[in-house]
Structures are given as C-alpha cells and as structure tokens.
C-alpha cells in the first residue's frame, strides 16, 4: 500500500484482477462449459489456463518493454501518434461497451432475483454513480476497496459452496474424459475469454510500483480464478445436473436456489451468491470507468485522471439500456466477448511488440 503516489502493489493488482475476472461470465460459465464439453466442462477452466498464459505473455512482453508507461504513453512511441490515438480510442470504446453490457446483465440479474419492481434503469444508474464515487479517488482507492471487498466476496461464497460440496451428487460428473479434444479446445478458448480483464494490464502495469512482478501477479490471478471457476462448474453440475445447466440462463443462481440448508435454517440463500457477485461487479465497473477515464485524461494530458469519469457515465448508461430485452442483452454480451474479447489480449499486443522490435523502441531486455 502506498500513500497517494498513484501506484499499486503486486498484491493489490492480484486482487483487482481476481475480482474483475469474477464477473457475469462466472454465472454463465457452467452453461457455456456444458454446451461445449458436456459433463467434462469442469476441465475447461484448467485447459483455458493455457490460453491465459498466451495472453499473459503477449501483454507482459509488451508492457515490460516500457516500464512505468501505460498503453497511452508507449503506443505513440511504437506506431506514431495518429495510429496510436486510433488504437487507444478503440480500446476505450471496447472497455465502455464491455462495461455497459456487464452493467446491463447486472441490472437484469438484480431485477430478476432481488428487486423485481425497481426499474432496471434505476439499478444501473445507482451502480454507475456509486462506482464513479469510488473511481474519482483514483486507482489507489479502488485497489484498497478491492482489498476490503475481497473478504465480503469470498467468505459468503465459501460458506455456500461448502454446503454444496458436502451434499453434492458427484456421480453427475461421470463418465470422465468422454469429450472429444476439439470441443474441449474450443470450449477452453471461450472460457478463457473470462480472463479478458487481463487486458487492463496494458494500463495497470505502468501504475505498478514493482512492474517486474507483473507476470507473477497475473499468474496468481489466473490460477486463482481458474480454480474458482472449476469449483463453481463442478458444484453446479453436481447440484443441478449437466442437462439443467445447459437449459438455465443463470445456472449458478439456480444452483444457489436448489440447495437446502439443514433444518431450513437459511432460505433464499441465492442472496449470498448475489452479495458476492454484486461486489465483484462493482469492482469490474470501477475498472471499466477508471481505465476509460485514464485513457482520456492521459491522451489529452490532463493532470487529473478523473476528469472523464462523469462524462463517460451517460455513454455507458446509454450502452447498457440499448438492448431491448434480456435476450438481446445476452446475445450482445456473449457475442461481443466472443468476437472482440481477444483483440487487446493477443493480436494488438503482438503487432505492437513486432513493430517495437522492428523499430527498436523500448527496453530490449524488458
């Protein structure tokens, strides 16, 4: 922890990445995994780690070449200002669309489970404004909030999952290893897109005090989230069955609804999962707002990094309310992640590394 120097520690980056990756896709994951690999879907997050390592190397090879710089500073050095600003604009647009769709899915879920009579617009707007309040204080405040929320997110989750793990019907996972390798590979790629928040490292790495430990931070976050995803998929299959996981839009919530605590001590236990998840979405939206604002303020060389936060809110809000229904929101959310999720994880960083090497820009031994 550092005092107001705009830097974050390795531990804070690990926590930020874990919480950002623990987003809506976690709730959809058992469904996606079941559709790709059936009963053996639980192995997809582990296989997806291989893709995660590729993302890790493509991003860290680039960022380590320009220590202390974010994408906003090093992109113009590599490809010249005009193209760099186009790339940065695309990145900002991508983050805003992803954040908008994420918050829409959040609104749909809260509306479905907790606040059925509250207009979804109100849910979305309150979340955006609350997030803006945190983000305006900068990356340090966000990172410290992540450190606090970590306990509020994972303690309820561990309690609920413990009950499920003890009572679950593990025969649901049998027969083992019956899925063909192509389906596993394709499924693992789709699951690996849940690691998409690693792309924030293009900006966040430059804000780390010990940037040489970027790889370590990402590896720990990746392994942690892959384990969590595997446990969640196994619990969902064992709890509600593989076929039901395919049928449900929010299989993890269905799982939470299906469990019965001894003696009916706790009812409506899906709220526990929702609590965890709301906090983690809060951190994801914070990242979306902060990094978009950071791109804007650093591009226009503003001293304050939070200048763009309030102007961005209406844009994200507009993106969030654009889909007419849950069906449309779901289609956009999954489709956008599938088609555009990979761009800033591998292709663009690789092109930048290639050009940087050709032009001999940055630290060669980075």
């Amino acid at each position: 922890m550092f005092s107001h120097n705009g830097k974050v520690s390795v531990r804070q980056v690990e926590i930020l990445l874990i919480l950002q990756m623990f987003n809506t896709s976690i709730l959809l994951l058992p469904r996606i995994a079941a559709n790709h690999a059936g009963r053996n879907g639980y192995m997809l997050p582990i296989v997806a780690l291989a893709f995660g390592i590729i993302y890790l190397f493509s991003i860290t090879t680039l960022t380590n070449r320009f220590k202390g710089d974010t994408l906003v500073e090093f992109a113009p050095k590599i490809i010249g200002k005009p193209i760099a600003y186009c790339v940065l604009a695309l990145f900002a647009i991508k983050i805003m669309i992803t954040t908008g769709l994420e918050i829409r899915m959040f609104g749909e879920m809260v509306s479905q489970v907790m606040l059925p009579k509250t207009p979804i617009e109100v849910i979305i707007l309150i979340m955006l404004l609350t997030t803006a309040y945190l983000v305006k204080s900068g990356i340090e405040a966000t990172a410290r909030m992540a450190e606090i929320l970590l306990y509020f997110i994972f303690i309820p989750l561990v309690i609920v999952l413990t009950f499920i793990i003890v009572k679950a019907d593990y025969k649901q996972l049998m027969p083992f290893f019956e899925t063909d390798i192509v389906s596993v590979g394709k499924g693992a790629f789709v699951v690996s897109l849940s690691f998409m928040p690693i792309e924030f490292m293009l900006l966040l790495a430059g804000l780390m005090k010990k940037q040489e430990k970027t790889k370590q931070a990402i590896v720990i976050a990746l392994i942690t989230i892959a384990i969590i995803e595997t446990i969640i998929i196994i619990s969902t299959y064992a709890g509600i069955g593989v076929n039901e996981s395919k049928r449900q839009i929010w299989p993890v919530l269905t799982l939470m609804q299906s469990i019965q605590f001894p003696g009916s001590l706790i009812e409506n236990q899906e709220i526990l999962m929702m609590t965890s998840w709301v906090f983690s979405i809060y951190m994801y939206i914070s990242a979306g707002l902060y990094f978009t604002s950071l791109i804007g303020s650093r591009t226009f060389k503003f001293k304050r990094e939070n200048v763009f936060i309030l102007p961005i809110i209406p844009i994200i809000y507009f993106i969030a309310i654009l889909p007419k229904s849950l069906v449309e929101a779901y289609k956009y959310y999954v489709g956008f992640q599938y088609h555009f999720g990979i761009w800033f994880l591998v292709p663009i960083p690789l092109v930048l590394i290639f050009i940087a090497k050709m032009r001999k820009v940055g630290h060669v031994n980075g």
Partner: protein
Amino acid sequence: MGKFKGLLLLILPLMLTGCWDSVELNERHVILEIAIDKTPKPDLSKPINERQIYQITYGIPDIGKLSGKDSLAENVKTSLTTQSPSIATSIDEIETKTQNTVTFSHTKALILGEEMLKDKDAFQAAIDALLRDMRIGRSVIVLATKGLAGDLTQADNPQNPIMGMYIMKYFNNKERPVSYAKGQLLANLIKELEDTGVSTMPMIMSDKEGIIQISGAALIKDYAFVTWLDKNEVRGQLLVEGKIKHVPIVVTYKDHYLTYMIKDQKSKIHFKENNGKLEANIDLTVKGDIIEYLSSNNKNIFNEESITEITQQLKQEIIRQTNLVIDKSQSLGVDFLGIGLEMYRKDPKQWKNYKDTWNEGDYKDFPIHVDTTVNIQNTGILE
C-alpha cells in the same frame, strides 16, 4: 453554501432506504403450500388461452395467529382456489381475493393431483411457469396425491393445520425412518427428469379421520404419469438406491418372528459380462441390530451359529424386497432405479450398445442380480 450542504446531507439519507414502494411483512400473504390440479371438466371448446385448465389451491396461513400466544389458535389458515388457463393468471386472480400481496418465497410444499400428473403438457407447463421467473425456490418439496390435491390441503389435519409446515417438518426430521417414502425436492425432480426422463415423487394421502400418510410414490416418465408405486415397491427402490435408514425387517426364525433394525445401508451397482452377456449386480450392504425375538433356553440367538442362520434369513428377505421393485420396474419397462444411468456413468462404451433401445425393450430383459451383505452388530441385552 453551508446551509445548502447541510440540507443536501439531510436529504441524501432518504436515498439509502432502499425501496420507496415497500410492502411490510404483515402485508404479505406467505403461501406455504400450493396444490395444483387439473380442472375436472375444462371447457375444451374454448381457445387454449382461455381454457381453465389449472385448478390451484393456495394455503394462506394467518401468521399472527400461528405465532406467539395464539399458536394453538383455530382457523389459522385460509384456502383459496382458482381456476385459470395459466399459473400467472391464477396468481393474478388470487390477488383480487386478498388484501395483501402474495409471496411464494417461503413455499414449503407443492402437491400435484392425479389428473394434473396425467396431463403431460399441463404438468410440464406448470413446473416451467413456477421456475421461469423464480417464483418459488427449487428446494420446495414436491408430492403427488390420488384425487384432488386441493381437497387434501383443505382437509382438517389434526396434527398441523398448515399442510406445508407438516410436510416440511416430516421431511426435515432426520430421526425419522426412511422406509416407505423417498423425499423429493423440486430441483432434484427436474434434474432427474432432464437427465433420464424418469423420476418419482412421494405420495401423500389423507384418511377419513384426516390422518395424513406419506408413503408410496407416483412414477413419472417424460413429465407424464406412469403409475402409482406402493410402499413396498418404494422400499425396494430405497434399498437399490442405498437410502434405507432405521427400518425394521421381520423374518421367521425357529417358528418365531425376529425383527432386525437396519441402521444404515449402502448400495453399489456394477456391471460384468457373463457368457458374453452384460448383467447388472446390485450389492447391498446393511448394518443393524436384532431388536425383537422371543428367546428361551433352547432358542438362544447369542451364538455364532444362530447369527449365521439369521443372517441368511435376512439376506433372503432383503433380496426378496429388492426383487419386488426390480420386477415391477422391468415389467413396466421404466428404469426408475437408474440402472441405465449407472451403466452410462460406469461403462459408457457398453452404454452405446444399449442407449437407443434401453427404453424400447432392452431394459425389460436386462439381467439384474441382487446380492446382500448383512451385518448384525447387536442382539440387545438378552440372550
């Protein structure tokens, strides 16, 4: 500016109250049991969206009377019945008959009438409707009844006027023997129906005195009722699934009855080839005590020879009880014992040879053998 800030600070907490259209708990009707029947004679000449297919009875308890000093109060519940073309319209109608908002978040039991179970479309649609907008929890207990479910929930039950509470207490009591009824949660029912297409739900009935009995089961295949299973058949099903607990088994030993109490039971299904033909073996292991036997000087059971003989008797009886349900299941051609599912899980390669024809006849002729290991742990304090 200072005054403005102060005013703003005073107003802002209003935003933190969470909801502006709150309905207090005492303004809610917490539905504890739902009985769904098919309307006895729906007017089939009407278009589908106007046919009053569902007859639903909601048990609304008076929470005030049920709690505190008035826990023994009478008339603690109101039953409201509606006829409607869908579940949502039924709830809509019920709202017109009550001063409070109805809520299903604490529903304990869902009881389905016989005719409802026999109408595949209506049954499947009702389950779908209840789950689609998460109206009721999936951990609600599901039961079937002969006749009308609404009549059952409205009948006087001297033990507990609230049927939902009665059912919840019945199944939550872990000291209760698991002998003639297999508890079924809505989540599990759906999981079984989605996985294999076959499931059972416990049967609940009431006699003329209003005494409630839960035993036997309704057999469901592809969301359609197949038949009723009697309590002995359910006993066999529980044996195959390894779920028997605290159940007495009575055999004859040396011209007198002997009661053995099963304390714990396990079951394992495995497959092996015999003369080139695959067969299933169900290995049951039971642990328990001898709790009743009239012994005398020449009829003493406290010796190894007697224990061996009694073990053989018990073994045969348990195999007989298990075979009862296997025969029933194979005669119906409905694999509610999960033999096919077990084959798929344990021997997926063999399952490929059977999966297309299993329900079409292969299951009926599939050889299934039962073997039992009986452990007599205690004979009581008498010889």
